[in-house]
């Protein structure tokens, strides 16, 4: 990545880190959720964008993490350890379901993962003794928001770094070749089963962590929030808007949509879901490759010498 952009990103990062001192509570809260979305979107895109498997159940890892953290803290576990457990359990569950779930391809994979998400939601409702059922789970509040803010910022940075790291590595090359033609990838000697399982597990760790951080800060979780739209579909839509399988795509999509959602929320109070829906329809019809690949903006990108996305120059990577 070229020098001016590295400098720009560092500056933005420092600015974000300074929010608790230079901004209001509102700004801090906004940045908190922005980082949360970013973490979820960037990790979603590893499986959904580079590998081409649309994981509609990505939010499940978040929900699992939130519940594990909550249950852990209620059980007397130290918050930091509970966070670690949250990430670990998410990763474990991912590893367990990876083998059966990757027997599905294409749209069936999307439906299957969506089904698993809904399944977990119903389980959360019904296993009330452990999860608190429909009323949800509460934990005692924390005095300061600072640690969770920085934890969430850290998680976002980690997610983006993970995404970038995968993109530039041989692992990423394997993923893209898998996405383009799985049979050919297999024939070329790539152990697709192991690759899929490992990457899936990898993509689950940060969401689990993020779920724990969320629970730490907001001290309350219930089934629709844990396994709901915000955590499962929103990252997918953000990634698709920005451009799946690109470095900047998740970033752009997340910032764009989080801002719009915030405006809608503060002005109208309704219709965020409709907004997301409209964005998704628009992207599907007009720009399946996302903003980063749109021909409309490509001249602007070239003028700005924006870093090349990982994938093709010739066209779309995630959706063709």
């Amino acid at each position: 990545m070229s020098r001016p952009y590295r400098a720009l990103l560092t500056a933005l990062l420092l600015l974000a880190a300074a929010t608790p001192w230079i901004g209001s509570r509102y700004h801090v809260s906004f940045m908190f959720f922005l980082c949360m979305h970013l973490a979820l979107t960037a990790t979603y895109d590893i499986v959904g964008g580079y590998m081409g498997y649309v994981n509609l159940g990505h939010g499940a890892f978040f929900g699992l993490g939130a519940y594990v953290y909550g249950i852990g803290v209620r059980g007397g576990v130290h918050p930091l350890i509970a966070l670690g457990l949250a990430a670990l359990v998410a990763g474990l569950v991912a590893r367990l379901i990876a083998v059966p779930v990757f027997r599905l391809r294409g749209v069936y994979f999307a439906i299957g993962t969506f089904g698993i998400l809904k399944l977990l939601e119903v389980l959360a409702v019904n296993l009330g003794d452990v999860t608190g059922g429909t009323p949800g789970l509460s934990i005692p509040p924390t005095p300061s928001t600072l640690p969770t803010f920085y934890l969430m910022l850290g998680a976002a940075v980690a997610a983006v770094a993970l995404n970038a790291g995968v993109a530039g590595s041989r692992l990423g090359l394997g993923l893209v070749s898998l996405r383009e033609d799985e049979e050919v990838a297999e024939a070329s000697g790539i152990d697709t089963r192991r690759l899929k399982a490992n990457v899936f597990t990898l993509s689950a760790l940060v969401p689990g962590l993020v779920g724990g951080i969320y629970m730490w800060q907001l001290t309350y979780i219930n089934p629709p929030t844990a396994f709901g739209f915000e955590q499962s579909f929103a990252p997918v839509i953000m990634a698709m808007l920005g451009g799946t399988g690109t470095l900047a795509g998740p970033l752009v999509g997340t910032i764009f949509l989080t801002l719009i959602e915030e405006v809608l929320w503060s002005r109208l109070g309704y219709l965020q879901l409709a907004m997301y829906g409209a964005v998704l329809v628009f992207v599907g019809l007009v720009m399946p490759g996302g903003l980063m690949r749109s021909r409309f903006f490509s001249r602007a990108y070239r003028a700005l010498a924006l870093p090349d996305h990982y994938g093709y120059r010739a066209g779309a990577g995630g959706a063709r």
Partner: protein
Amino acid sequence: MSALLQILIGAGLQGALYALGAIGLSLSFGVLRIMNLSHGDFLMLGGLVGYLAFVHLGLNPFVAAALVGGCLFLAGIAYHELLLTRLAGRSPRGVLIASVMVTLGSALAIEDLTAFFWGGSSIGIPYRLRSLVWGDAVFPLLRVLLLVATLVLTTGLYFFLGKSFLGRAVVASTLNREGALVVGINIRRIALFTFGFGIALTGATGVFYATLFSIEPYMGLGLTLKYLAVIVVGGIGSLPGALVGGLVIATAESVTAYYLGPHWSPMVAFAILVAALLVRPQGLLGRA
């Protein structure tokens, strides 16, 4: 014994309702290769229009269902023309991803907009008929009539697809697209017609849904998932498969509700869907 019988019969009625709603989804994926995730939302809309017809025009649910069917047929064709026809030129994977995006986005938009304009509460059509009593078992007449209507519709559809020229063209398009093209079948028109018909059927089911249970704006996606379970179990593209799938899911739900409690039954459809996808994706009666 009679409790079990009651459960099974109830499951039969419920299964028929599921099948009716699911047929459209099966046809649209079979003929168009489009996974319409907004399918359940058209059921909700149908129920809404049916409710309005009942309240403002005094139409009973059966008549309203016919009216809704007509309206939603046109709506389905418009929806396809506006949103889905543009996808036809893309690669098979592109079509799939794009259709998921477009239909999912539509689902979210429809649900939220409906809630915005209508209010988030659930509504039902307060239309009641008496019950038939036979020995120990009680059959609500309304449900029985619905079962009859469902069977009539399904049989009619089955014969249409099997005997009429147009029907056989639809089936042929599902079985082998290239074959259909070389004999001069206008696949685009068939696709449009099939899609519109599927939406119409779902909308009509929505009216029945509103009468038997209730409808609320955000029910669509979960319902679509349940219908997916129905057609995956029964076999995508198979009409008798939809009936079988509906029966299986409804029976499983009833049995679960009876033995484990009603709060477990929402999970049944999802669990069966995931299991079916993993074990036998082509379903009991379908082709791969």
